[in-house]
């Protein structure tokens, strides 16, 4: 119960498909979403493969809550190997595509192989088919989605790639419902390498829970007591743009390629400004928080811009013009580009230009070239052919290695680690390179009551956050509901019909985190890769709360050793056999 009981495999090489019974043992150990997706992925895929080869897979996985009325359960987990970082890559996407897969009768869809020519796949309940996508290839995500809905019917949910994915850009994302992305690490390029333009889903089967009366009672209580409270309702009133002012006040708003943590132009890109152009609020399926802001500004409309876009493509590029950020955002969504990595590479090019290292023809705050870059990157034209390869590649080619803001090849999101030392560890030990969604210690450090400028206690804090998020993204509850572990256990019990404890969830979180780590270790990652760019350790911020403070590398390394020890990993960051056995990982 809580599960559809089937997993669909689509082989693009042969154009065939098959279904398998859901592996119930794995579902018990990994629950769903991230955990189960990762388990399926690592069980079938060698860590050494080239991410853009036909041997790579994309695992789309729902969780036991998908399709139910449980709030914030509408997301879908996507797992593959990242062409940007070479690590395992798990991303989430909102909207309705996840629940639709469940309504079609599947817990997950696994895409394998490579088509000879561009195709799109259609999953209409039990009917699965693969069709030529010649007329869609070369088009943006928006055209693609709207054309497919015209062709197949309004009811179909679409997840597609734009030109960036087709051209194998390692910062290409998947887009669904025009403005929702599985953003990071280049999953769009993996679709592109498989010549899969889009996946369309319609599901007309009901989703069942073991005891509907009990389920509705639990969800109703949690909604009142834990969800629709002042702890979470910022999502409804503002959404993520609220973080612009919060981060700026705390001195951790990435500014001009992480040269500062305070942006003098923050007032024109903060939440009040976004609210002033907001048309309406939008929610994912079954979400009561509705963080989405549908805005209209100048000629552009977008659902967004989210904090990460405002930070990385706003302050980090020295751009304080909200209209420009919105247009950049809309362009990236259509081309199928991750705004975090795209914003980062633009900021890096701006700094290289300003420092005279290489002339990319743009400086901080230059709007005109900034708005041209997404198109150039997606088509790999002009400067776009270099910038498309990401910050690490550009640094290796032109210089600026010490201020190339990436970890394992994935560009850093919107929280400056010098103003939240634990966040540095979270970036360094994230399972997919610099990511803010594995642990979020900034909540306690920058915005909370913990001292941000110490490494004391941060290893345990980060580990706790990594386990919490790992299991949360496996049951699939959205990040934005700060639900307690106990209440997650109540939800999991109500959905699966077996008694699930918070201890069991905690342990599953640890199991999932070790499973992704093991894949990365087997792909060759060790301690040396668990680090941060030199800028973080060698330069200080000029303004704000963290101004003038150094983040000593020795302290970071000591914290990293403590982190490994607490995890039961050796000094190189390799999980020990005892730990793996304890967690039932093979």
């Amino acid at each position, binding site marked *: 119960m809580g599960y559809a009981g089937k997993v669909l495999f689509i082989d693009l090489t042969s154009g065939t498909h098959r279904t398998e019974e859901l592996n119930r043992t794995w579902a018990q150990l990994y629950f769903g979403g991230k955990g189960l997706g990762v388990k399926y992925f690592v069980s079938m895929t060698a860590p050494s493969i080239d991410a853009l080869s036909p041997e790579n897979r994309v695992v789309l996985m729902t969780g036991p809550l998908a399709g*139910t*009325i449980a709030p914030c359960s509408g997301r879908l987990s996507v797992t593959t190997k990242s062409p940007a970082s070479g690590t395992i890559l798990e991303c989430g996407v909102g909207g*309705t595509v996840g629940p639709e897969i469940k309504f079609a009768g599947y817990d997950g869809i696994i895409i394998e192989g490579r088509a000879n020519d561009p195709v799109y796949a259609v999953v209409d309940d039990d009917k699965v088919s693969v069709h030529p996508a010649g007329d869609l290839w070369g088009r943006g995500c928006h055209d693609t989605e709207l054309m497919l809905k015209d062709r197949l019917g309004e009811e179909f949910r679409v997840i597609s790639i734009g030109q960036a994915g087709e051209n194998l850009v390692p910062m290409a994302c998947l887009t669904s419902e025009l403005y929702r992305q599985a953003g990071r690490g280049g999953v769009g390029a993996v679709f592109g390498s498989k010549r899969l333009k889009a996946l369309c889903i319609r599901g007309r089967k*009901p989703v069942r829970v073991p005891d509907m009366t009990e389920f509705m009672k639990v969800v109703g209580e949690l909604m009142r007591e834990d969800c629709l409270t002042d702890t979470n309702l910022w999502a409804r009133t503002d959404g993520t743009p609220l973080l612009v002012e919060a981060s700026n006040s705390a001195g951790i708003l990435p500014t001009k390629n992480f040269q500062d943590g305070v942006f003098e132009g923050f007032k024109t890109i903060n939440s009040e400004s976004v609210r002033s152009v907001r048309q309406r609020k939008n929610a994912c*399926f079954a979400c009561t928080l509705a963080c*989405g802001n549908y805005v209209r500004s100048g000629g552009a409309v977008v*659902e967004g811009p989210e904090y990460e876009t405002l930070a990385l493509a706003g302050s980090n590029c020295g751009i304080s013009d909200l209209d420009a950020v919105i247009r950049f955002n809309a362009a990236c969504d259509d081309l199928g580009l991750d705004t975090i990595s795209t914003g980062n590479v633009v900021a890096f090019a701006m700094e290289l230009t300003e420092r005279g290292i290489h002339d990319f023809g743009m400086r901080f705050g230059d709007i005109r070239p900034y708005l041209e870059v997404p198109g150039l990157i997606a088509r790999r034209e002009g400067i776009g052919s270099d910038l498309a390869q990401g910050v690490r590649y550009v640094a290796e080619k032109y210089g600026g290695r010490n201020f190339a803001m990436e970890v394992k090849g994935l560009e850093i999101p919107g929280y400056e680690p010098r103003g939240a030392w634990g966040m540095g560890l979270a970036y360094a030990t994230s399972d997919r390179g610099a990511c803010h969604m594995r642990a979020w210690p900034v909540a306690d450090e920058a915005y909370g009551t913990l001292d941000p400028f110490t490494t004391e206690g941060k290893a345990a804090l980060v580990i706790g956050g990594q386990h919490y998020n790992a299991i949360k993204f496996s049951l699939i509850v959205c990040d934005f509901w700060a639900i307690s572990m106990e209440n997650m256990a109540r939800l999991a019990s109500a959905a699966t019909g077996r008694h699930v404890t918070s201890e069991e969830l905690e342990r599953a979180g640890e199991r999932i985190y070790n499973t992704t780590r093991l894949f990365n270790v087997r792909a060759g990652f060790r301690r040396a890769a668990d680090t941060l760019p030199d800028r973080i350790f060698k330069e200080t911020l000029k303004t704000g709360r963290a101004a003038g403070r150094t983040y000593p590398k020795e302290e970071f390394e000591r914290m990293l050793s403590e982190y490994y020890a607490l995890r039961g990993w050796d000094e190189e960051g390799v999980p020990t056999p005892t730990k793996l056995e304890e967690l039932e990982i093979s």
Partner: protein
Amino acid sequence: MLKFYGDKCFGCQACQLACSAEKLGVFSPRLSLLKVSVRFSKTDRSVLGFVCNACGRCADVCPVEAIVMRCGPKIDSDLCTSCGLCAEECPQGIILQDEEGKARICDFCGGSPACAGWCPAEALRWEV
């Protein structure tokens, strides 16, 4: 009366899930007796809502008088002949037929509609 305010709705579909849970004990937007549809184009996003407004058309067209209007439509399934006329005629398009073809019609849950109760946006309201 059940009232839908499209400007407030953010499209979560909790109303439809609450309906199918209440009436059938499953979650299925497509089996719910109201419809909320998020339409988007490149320049706009809107939410269309279709709920029973007790217009009485179903009762009017029912050839065997299985449907009576009492606050909302009430159907006597024993009388229903599965002809499907009411579903065809419903201006909101929200009357469904079960596996036997018998009509399923919104009855406002007897005056305390689950859909409005679960709406987190105050977009769907039961106004007496």
